[in-house]
């Protein structure tokens, strides 16, 4: 169990989804306690990933469902505008740190996602990997732990910074917390 008072934390896109809604009463209680103490910080990259997903979902769905998807997107935008300070913007420091990590971790550590009928393209997998790097860089520059549900992507970044700290002066270590450990 992670003490909510030990926050604030940055929530990766996957962690924010995992907790909305919380999957168990213990997680719901953890989240409520956390939300009474700190904002659910997310990187601006998460907002972009989400908005792109809603736009694509709206364009791909049947016309009758479009209004529903738009309404869900509006709820998401409201969750951001109700607490704008929870969104951590991209800054020069985040850009430079992301560039350093992207140059050293050029290839995604796991293959593209797939279901039995559909698959993620290599380009989309690479862009998702780079978005994850920017999210990790945001947490690092703000010196906050990163809550995630995606160890296969974030662990290589943590290991890189731990192995070569001289390449990342003034930041780190990357403190990762699995979303599944929050209330466990």
């Amino acid at each position, binding site marked *: 169990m992670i003490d909510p008072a030990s926050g*604030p934390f940055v929530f990766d*896109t*996957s962690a*924010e*989804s995992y*907790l*909305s*809604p919380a999957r168990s009463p213990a997680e719901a209680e953890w*989240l*409520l306690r*956390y*939300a*009474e*103490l*700190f*904002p*659910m*910080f997310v990187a601006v990259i998460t907002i972009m*990933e*989400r908005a*792109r*997903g*809603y736009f*694509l*979902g709206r364009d791909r*769905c049947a016309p009758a469902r479009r209004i*529903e*998807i738009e309404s*869900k*997107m509006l*709820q*998401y935008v*409201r*969750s951001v505008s*109700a*607490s*704008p*300070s*929870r969104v*951590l913007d991209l800054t020069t420091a985040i850009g430079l740190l992301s560039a350093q990590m992207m140059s050293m971790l050029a290839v995604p550590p796991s293959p593209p*996602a*797939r*279901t039995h*009928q*559909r*698959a*993620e*393209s290599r380009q*989309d997998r690479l862009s*998702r990997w780079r*978005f994850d790097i920017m999210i990790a860089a945001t947490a690092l520059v*703000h010196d906050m732990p990163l809550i995630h549900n995606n160890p296969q992507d974030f662990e290589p970044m943590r290991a890189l910074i731990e192995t070569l700290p001289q390449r990342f002066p003034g930041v780190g270590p990357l403190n990762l917390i699995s979303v599944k450990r929050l209330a466990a």
Partner: protein
Amino acid sequence: MLKTASRRRAKHAPIQGRTRRTTWTLPQEVLRDVERFASDRHQSVSSAAAYLLQQGLRQQPDRKALPGPDVLEMLRKSFAGLTEEEQMLVDGIILEDPSAESK
């Protein structure tokens, strides 16, 4: 003349609001940077330090701006009822028909 006058005003401009004398221990290089900044702007070191601290604090995320439970409810609604594929899309995972990619 105008430049000189504004310089003089800047030099003697009081720090806005009430002030309090205090003693801090700072890294020497930070103090040197603040002194250089103050000198460049023809300000007292106290004014320059107050300005720099205010600027730095403004750039920090507002950790007290909460409305947490409301945000949680909005988040819940934003994901409720999405199909598995739609949820993957808003999680940043875009799945395509592989045959479409090779075309």
